[in-house]
């Protein structure tokens, strides 16, 4: 006769097996759709470019060298690839600024939403998700309509006589920034709101009661308690911002490239698939390093606060 212990163990084994079986389809899709292609990209990055795109099955570290370096056509000496570095730096800068901008805009929005009555909260939540109903490309073109030289902003400013010539916003870094901040704002608001909604506002009252001013309550009580939401929001904005493709190509006009546009170029006109692959992997590494540094840093300062 099986002892109770054996029965329990068997049940546990069955449980584990069932879980694997149930998640198998999802795991398969994730592997085929994400990990598989990624492995192909990794392999491609060590091959030689073919003449008409495609790759030649011949090992070469050249693509990885070209990520940051440039080989002189005449004497084969290596120098820093200024164009690539500029694009890398611009992408990182724009992503960081976008993250900060969405945080500055999103935090008060989330606070506002979380302090409404329960019924109106749902309405605000609903309103926040409305932009998701429309295609990203269409939303980006909507932004373009607003900021272009003949757009709403310039037309109004000209009519009011505040400016005499249209301000060139479109096709600048500012345009990309506005576009990205607009597109990614909900991704910042939602996780902060989720944290803020769980915040016990009696703690805020306790803060006021203990002589903390409004700013001190924000800094010492509200912010540390909703930090998980801020971290999640920052990650959710920073990663897609660094890989943004549609927004910089529409609003940056091809002149102000970001990383995705550079990568796209290698697979298209550039006919250098290995370089495109190496750049893609490089971006992933940057994201991973940035994330680890950010999360570790945020975690440590949390300990210091408490």
């Amino acid at each position: 006769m099986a002892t109770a212990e054996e029965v329990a163990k068997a049940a546990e084994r069955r449980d584990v097996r069932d879980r694997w079986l149930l998640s198998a389809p999802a795991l398969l899709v994730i592997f085929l759709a994400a990990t598989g292609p990624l492995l192909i990209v990794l392999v491609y990055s060590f091959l030689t470019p073919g003449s008409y795109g495609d790759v030649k099955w011949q090992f070469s570290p050249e693509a990885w060298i070209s990520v940051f370096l440039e080989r002189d056509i005449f004497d084969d000496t290596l120098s820093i690839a200024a164009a690539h570095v500029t694009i890398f730096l611009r992408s990182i800068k724009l992503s960081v600024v976008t993250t900060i901008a969405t945080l500055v805009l999103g935090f008060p929005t989330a606070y506002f939403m979380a302090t409404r009555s329960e019924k109106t909260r749902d309405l605000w939540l609903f309103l926040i998700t409305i932009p998701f109903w429309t295609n990203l490309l269409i939303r980006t073109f909507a932004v373009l309509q607003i900021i272009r030289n003949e757009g709403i902003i310039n037309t109004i400013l000209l009519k009011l006589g505040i400016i005499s010539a249209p301000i060139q916003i479109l096709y600048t870094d500012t345009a990309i920034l506005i576009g990205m901040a607009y597109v990614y704002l909900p991704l910042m608001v939602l996780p902060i709101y989720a944290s803020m909604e769980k915040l016990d506002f009696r703690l805020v009252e306790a803060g006021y009661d203990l002589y903390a001013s409004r700013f001190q309550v924000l800094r010492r009580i509200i912010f540390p308690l909703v930090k998980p939401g801020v971290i999640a929001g920052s990650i959710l904005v920073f990663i897609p911002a660094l890989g943004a493709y549609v927004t910089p190509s529409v609003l940056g006009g091809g002149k102000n490239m970001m990383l995705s546009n550079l990568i796209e170029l290698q697979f298209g006109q550039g006919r250098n698939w290995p370089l495109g692959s190496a750049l893609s992997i490089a971006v992933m590494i940057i994201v991973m390093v940035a994330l680890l540094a950010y999360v570790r840093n945020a975690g440590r300062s949390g300990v210091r606060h408490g």
Partner: protein
Amino acid sequence: MPDKPDRNAIEVVNVSKIFGSGEGQVAALDTVSVSIRENEFFTLLGPSGCGKTTLLRLIAGFDFPTAGEILLYGQDIAPLPPFKRPVNTVFQSYALFPHMTVADNIGFGLEMLGKPKAEIKARVAEMLKLVKMEALAGRRTSQISGGQQQRVALARALAPQPKVLLLDEPLSALDYKLRKEMQIELKRLQHETGITFIFVTHDQEEALTMSDRIAVMSSGKILQVGSPWDIYDKPAERFVADFIGETNFLTAAISEMANGKARATLKSGATIEATVAQSFQPKPNATVVVRPEHAKLTKAKGELSGTVENIVYFGTDTHIHVHLDSGELFTVRQQNTRSAGCGFEKGDAVGILIGSDAAQVLKD
């Protein structure tokens, strides 16, 4: 209480608080006036929804009165935000900051007041000692028990040395034993710090055992203010008599008022002596109250007569419910002894003796 100076710490003058607007508006407080003396343990007692917490929140500054003034040592504080009032609160839920240690919680108020680090450290150590929590200074507030959280909440509110400490049902989340312990602890703290305490509770026993004075509240009004003894033995109104302890209500005709005493003729025809307020207008249909422990059950004739309906054993005493011949119900509380039973049985015909100082005439 002896040696209490008559200076008022808090004066609430004609304060009203109305929530909502139009049809849905609710008066949480209706022209309430009360004075709370310096160094006093003052309790606001009443059922939930009577406005006691609202009054506390007005004094703390979390809400602002619709009308009226709140004076702190003569200065109107009603328009000040909470962080500008020298008043601290112990919250019902404690509201300890979960991301800080016990010591950081206690030091928070002093830190916000901009006190020097050394002073904060010394004061926090002093507070930890006062509430006997020295060993747990470095713990997170989520790692300590309910009773310990309670102590931290107290220490945190006392640390900035407020002029008045507000306590919003701080003991309601504790179990019975711990609650008893904390009641004594609170009295000790109040005595040691000399700070005026305003304590909110719906627990009449808590109010009676801890307070110097009690204000009984109901539906946004203060019905009676007085010492625990006043409130229990000389209830002015039916609500107060009913809310505090157990009471027998008897209908009686009042006559011959003199020197705070009156003759009350009960339905049974017997007359008893009852204390009465000077302002009382004699009328035939007044209510007289008698506490169950102030009446005596006898097998002989008494002022009232009836049949024993039910006997309930409580350990320290026994409650005997008597169905009076007049149709009313009357409860007598009898102290138990170890050797004998209560001496009565269900169905016994009994008489009830009411002492000359046992009855009180109600205002309404």
